[in-house]
């Protein structure tokens, strides 16, 4: 039986692992379908303290993993199919049939890129629709690309994609952008970036060889048009990875896990949540890491309590 199983290996899960490992609790960390989490698909991280010159997202995650391993955190690849959280210790069932048992559980499964949910989108993922510029930008050398979204990530992806594309058009539903000023300014100064604001994406238009255009509606005039493009990068935020929990834990209406304010405690004793999987308005690497430390400390306290009774 494990003292603690951590599910998810973004900054939250790995920080929790570092803390638990340093406390000699030998945590078992399960790496799922997106090892390293969202940061592995970013380029440079400029706001993580301690790196005055910035650091590449994948490198930062590799460092965190090494740091956890240094203190003997155990890592394994696995895909958790289901849980039984109705009694302690908890049971986890992995794809392939293996069962794991643990006294405590930290959920740090994060959030995954959200799609627009418009016709033509899903069937063209990998045929011109993408949610990962760093992965797929390379295939659009000299081509026209649309980035949908108005947040920091959309600005960053658009900026990055100008390395490959002949033109990058940012399409955003609102006239105003959600992105921070520094990111907006950087995008506006890039002369390869053009703008289609106040336009709602309606449909991905595709031909035999994949994406050919994006149909949008002008929100002021109601007029519809098709913008020609070879690729559509969707950067409109994230959706929490909580479906596999099958409703065993309390979530908000969107699916983010609810925790007791100021702690990492979920509604089930012994189950803790940290990072983007819990309702959290900040969604930064550093806040995820911070909440990972909180979860580890909460686990430690909890284990002390149950062992003293």
């Amino acid at each position, binding site marked *: 039986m494990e003292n603690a199983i951590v599910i998810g290996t973004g900054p939250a899960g790995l920080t929790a692992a570092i803390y638990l490992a340093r406390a000699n609790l030998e945590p078992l960390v399960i790496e799922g379908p997106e*090892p390293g989490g969202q940061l592995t*698909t970013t380029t440079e991280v400029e706001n993580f303290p301690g790196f005055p010159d910035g650091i590449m997202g994948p490198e930062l995650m590799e460092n965190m993993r090494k740091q956890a391993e240094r203190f003997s955190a155990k890592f394994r690849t696995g895909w958790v199919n289901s849980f039984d959280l109705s009694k302690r210790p908890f049971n986890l069932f992995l*794809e392939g049939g293996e069962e794991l048992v643990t006294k405590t559980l930290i959920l740090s499964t994060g959030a995954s890129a959200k799609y627009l949910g418009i016709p033509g989108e899903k069937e063209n*993922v*990998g*045929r011109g629709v*993408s949610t*990962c510029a760093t*992965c797929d930008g390379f*295939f659009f050398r000299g081509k026209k690309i649309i980035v949908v979204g108005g947040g920091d990530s959309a600005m960053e992806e658009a900026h990055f994609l100008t390395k490959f594309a002949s033109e990058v058009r940012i399409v955003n539903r609102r006239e105003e952008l959600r992105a921070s000023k520094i990111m907006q300014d950087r995008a506006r100064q890039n002369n390869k970036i053009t703008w289609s604001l106040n336009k709602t994406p309606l449909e991905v238009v595709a031909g035999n060889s994949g994406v050919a255009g994006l149909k949008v509606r002008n929100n002021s005039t109601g007029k519809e048009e098709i913008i020609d493009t070879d690729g559509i990068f969707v950067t409109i935020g994230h959706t929490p990875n909580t479906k596999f929990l099958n409703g065993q834990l309390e979530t908000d209406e969107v699916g983010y896990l609810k925790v007791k304010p100021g702690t990492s405690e979920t509604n089930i004793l012994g189950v803790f949540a940290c990072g983007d999987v819990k309702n959290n308005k900040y969604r930064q690497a550093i806040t995820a890491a911070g909440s990972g430390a909180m979860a580890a400390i909460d686990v430690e306290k909890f284990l002390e309590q149950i062992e003293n009774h």
Partner: protein
Amino acid sequence: MERIQSQEQFQAKINDEGYTVMKFDATWCPDCKNMDRFIGDVIKDYPDKKFYAVDSEQFEEFAGKYEVKGIPSLLVFKDGEKIAHLHSKFAKTPTQIREYLDTIKA
């Protein structure tokens, strides 16, 4: 998984008898690293198919020709023609890959 070394080798392999699965990837792609953790185990269960890895940067021409617009992608060839194309967004776990490969039978 054996890696394709030359254009000639690629051509020869896709013309081989039976099914040939080409995994397009790149050194800098996080989803490719993810897939590499388990693809080795999966392909053992498909002795009827031959699997090769193709560096998309090294063989950009093939990536273009076969419409690879995201990686990793698994392209299935038979008699030199591409007959199926799975993109990684739908291939994050061993089960998803197995389900896809199961659909391609002689």
